[in-house]
Each structure stands twice: as C-alpha cells, then as structure tokens.
C-alpha cells in the first residue's frame, strides 16, 4: 500500500487555480521529486499536503487515513514534516536549542510536569538532548551546536533546517528546494545527505529546480505545469517525455533556434 495518496487535489485562489486536479501516490521508502517551471504550483502542493492551506477540492490520505482537514500541527504529529523554501529557523536560538525544541511532539510529560520539572520531563529532555546531538553529528553540524542560528552560513543553515525537521521524527519528509543557493559540490554532499535520510527509513518528497540533482536523487518524478500534472515516471522517462520538454523549453516551432 502506498504511504501517501493525493487524489484530485485542487486549490483555487480567487480566479487563479494554483493546483488543478492533481493525483499521485508516494510509496514507502522512495524519493519522489516534484518539478515544474516557476509558478507551476509545487509549493502550493506542499502547503496542501502539510495542511498549511486547505484544498478547494480533493483528498489527501496518509497511511490509509484521511488527513485533508486536520490542522498543521496534527499533520506533523501523524508524521508529515516539511521544510520551507525560504530560510525558516528559530534565529535567536542556538543550533542545538533549535533541534532540541523540535523534538516537541515526542514529549510525554504534561504541561504541569514540565513546569514542575517532573521525572518524566527530565527524562524527555535528556533523551531529546542526546537525540539532537546525534542528528547534528549526522548532518555534520556538531561543531556548530552552540552557535546562534542567525550566524550560520547558508549551507549549514539548510542542513540545520533539515535537522529540525528530522527531530520531529517524520515518516514522510517534504523538502522545499533544499539545494537552492548551493554550489555543485555542496549539492552533491546534500544529495548524499538526503539519500542517507531515506536509508534511515524516511520517505522523501522534494521540490527542486536543480535538474542535475533531481535526476541523480529521484526514484520517481512528478512534473507539474500550470497546476496540472503533465507527467510522472522514472528520471529517464521524464527526460525523454515530449510534454515535459515542451513545458520547460517551449514548442519547437514557437521558439526560433531550438
């Protein structure tokens, strides 16, 4: 059975249809990329899956359960966690504090327990601290754990965002343009990192513009154009798909020189 099913998903903003009747499935343990030209509705699709936006039409099923109308924090609790296109981090906290905080949904102590520092609360915090260090080490950030997030350079910041998302213990991780602003070398490292995350048992969906990275990393690709799904398949198939080539490069007879 597939982990996530998106069925006939539509989102309208007034007269604009950002996502139009999109359906696809994500299998457990795969890396699925969503690509498409600017404004194709990729980020809107992400926001719909994580409930940051409510769809106008259609359903989202996760592990056989309809999650379409749940609030975002409940969707996160079910195991769907996203990163953001723009840098999104708790800037005034250190790297370690960011990741420790992000363990929040594994908290077993009640609010009163936390206030009175009960045994459960202390146990939680020790556990989160260890787990956070482990995640930071895994992503190569251990040396920067006490650095305030706003002082981190871009590449490390991206890794920290992924660390924060991983701390929330996702089954399904949605990465919104994780390789933006990286040089080829950094991208290669990041691609390996995402593969490593998948090998830890996390299913990954990512939106990305860097075609080289997408072709390298994806098990399957979904292509959107003007909010509609125009193709789906393995990287090889997508590269040769005429509809995809048209969407990216325009029709041959319209563009002189191709």
């Amino acid at each position: 059975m597939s982990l996530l099913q998106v069925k006939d998903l539509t989102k309208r903003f007034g007269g604009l249809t950002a996502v139009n009747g999109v359906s696809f499935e994500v299998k457990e343990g795969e890396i699925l990329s969503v690509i498409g030209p600017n404004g194709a509705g990729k980020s809107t699709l992400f926001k719909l899956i994580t409930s940051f936006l409510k769809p106008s039409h259609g359903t989202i099923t996760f592990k056989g359960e309809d999650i379409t109308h749940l609030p975002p924090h409940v969707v996160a609790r079910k195991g769907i966690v996203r990163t953001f296109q723009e840098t999104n981090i708790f800037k005034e906290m250190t790297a370690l504090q960011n990741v420790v905080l992000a363990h929040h949904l594994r908290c077993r102590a009640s609010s009163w327990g936390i206030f009175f520092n009960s045994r459960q609360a202390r146990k939680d915090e020790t556990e989160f601290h260890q787990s956070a260090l482990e995640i930071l080490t895994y992503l190569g950030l251990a040396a920067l754990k006490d650095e305030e997030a706003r002082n981190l350079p871009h590449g490390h910041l991206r890794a920290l965002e992924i660390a924060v998302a991983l701390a929330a213990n996702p089954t399904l991780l949605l990465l919104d343009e994780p390789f933006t602003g990286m040089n080829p070398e950094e991208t290669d490292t990041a691609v390996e990192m995402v593969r490593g995350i998948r090998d830890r048992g996390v299913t990954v969906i990512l939106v990305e513009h860097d075609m080289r990275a997408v072709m390298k990393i994806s098990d399957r690709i979904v292509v959107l154009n003007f909010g509609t799904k125009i193709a789906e398949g393995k990287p090889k198939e997508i590269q040769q798909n005429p509809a995809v080539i048209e969407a990216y490069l325009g029709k041959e007879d319209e563009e002189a020189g191709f």
Partner: protein
Amino acid sequence: MAATRKVESERVEEKVREGGKGKPGILSSVLPFSLSSVLLFFLGLIYLIIFPLLYRDSRYVLGVVINASMLSVISLGVWLTFTIGRTNISQGAFALIGGYTTAILSVRYGVSFWLCLPLSGLMAALIGALIGWPILRLRGVYFAMITLSLTEATRLAFLNGGDFTRGGTGIVDIPRPGALSIAGITLIPAFKGSDPLPFYYLAASLLVLTLISLRRLTQSRIGWVFRSLRQNEELASSIGINVAKYRVMAYAICCFIGGLGGSFFAAFQQNIYPATYTVTDSIYFMLYCFLGGLDYLFGPVVGAFLLIISFELLHSIQTYQTMIYAIIMITFMLWLPNGILSLRFKK
C-alpha cells in the same frame, strides 16, 4: 555591513575547524554559584527582611514600595505575552476583572480574601482564555489595538453593570484580609487597622513567588515553545507545536497574574471603580516591560520600580513632573531601546 558578515562567517568556519571547543568562563569554573545569584540573594534579603524592618513606621515609603511591587507583578504578566511576540495592552482589563471579583465576592457574599485572591486570578484567566482564543490570531499592531480597546470595553462593562457592579460609584468598604487558618492553626493573622506592613509582606511574597514561577516557566520547555512562537509560528506548527494552545496558555497566565494584582489592590485600597484601571494603566504595564528590557525577566520589575520611585521623587516639582518624566522616558527609548538591563547583561 558586508565586512562584518564576512568576519562572522570566518569565525564560524574557524569553529568548524576547531571542533567547537569553547573556553569555559574562569569564574564559573571556580565558584559553585554565579555572582548574579549571590547578588540576587542579597537583594531578596534586603527586600523581604531588612527593608520592612527599617521602614516599618513610614507609611509613605512602604506604600510606594507596595505599589511598585504589585505593579511589577501585574507587568510581569504582560512581559510573558511579549515572549510569545505579542504587544499586550489589555492587562488593565484583567486587573479590573480581578479587582471586581474580589470586591463582589467579599462584599456581597462574605468570601474570605484568601479565597478571593486565587479565584480572582482564575476568573481573569478564564475570561482571558475565552477572549484570547480568537484575538491571538492577530499580530503586531493589530493585536495591540484590539487589546487596547479591550481595556476600554471592560471599563465600560463595569460602568454599565447596573446593581451588580454599582456603576460609577464603584464598590467601597471592601474588608481587609481576615485571618487565614487551616484546621484551627492560624497561618496568617488578620490585617488589622490601617497598618500597611502586612500588605508589604503580602506584596513582596507575591512578587517573589511570581518571579520564581515565571523563571521556572521560561527556563522549561514551555518557555522555549513560547519564544519559538515569537520567532516563527509557521515553523513551530510544522514541527508539531499546537500554536493556538500555547499562545492561549501564555495569555491566560498573563491574565491570571493581572487578576491577582487587581485582587490585591482591591483589598489594599478597599475600593474599586471602573476607572481604577484605564487604558493609561494598561500602557504603563507595557512600558515598564520596555523600559527594563523585554529580554530579561527582571525587566518589568526594574522598569516599574524606577518609574514609580522617580515619579515620587519628582513630586516636589509638581508643575514639571510630567514633563521631566516624559523626557526620561524618551531618553531611555532612544538610547537604550533594549531596556535598562541591556547595560549590564549583554546577550
């Protein structure tokens, strides 16, 4: 700007190479306790024991410090809502609600002050949670505006409360706190006559208790969650934090503290009117926080004591009092935008 950025990133790179080994502070490795905790201990000693013994006969001095202490308590609530990134100008409303709860319960139903005090806090917290749920969706100046109108709306509600709140004449002759005894043992003797000393001890205990509770709260995970809401609500909800729940929690705790303060002043002044707390008071509660520094738990305490005491000192030059006061305020806002405590404690 570009140069400092470069230096910053170089420093980070250096750290990566070093493997993140930082130098521990020299003092903290020698002493089992920090200097600031020693300072706090002595301040607490003076405040709770030495000061009231020295000034036990000076009604005026005790009165000023009682005022400053309880206004600090009320402002500490507002400070908590600053930690979730909301500028709250509604604290006067909840002090009013707390005050009226105590007034009505004790005058009409003869309930003991020691029961009225927590009940007033709870009543304010309950109303705060109900109102906070919808309005906390707003941020920035919109939240500030709606909380400001809330103060005014609450004043009007009590003014037009008919026989229940006795309108503009207010509720007077609120009894002084009686004895608190449990199982025949008197824990607190009745507050007799017009001696302000027992009120001093009560105000001081409430301030210390509020400070300890808030310190515990802000250092716990809940405090981290609050600060995460100030920095990025979107990210907080994406990692599974129930944003609505925690911001209502912060606001309700703030209102609880406001209710306690209102209840105290009702018993202390023995009266309450709709005009006891107005929009001006709500703004002052917020100003104390700004003045002391929003990043510091002691911010509102420092702000409140400084403003209230300087206001009293300026009393002799009455004509210019407000003007000098305003100049002090403007100067501080201009030169110390992060509050007075930012002078000593660099972040």
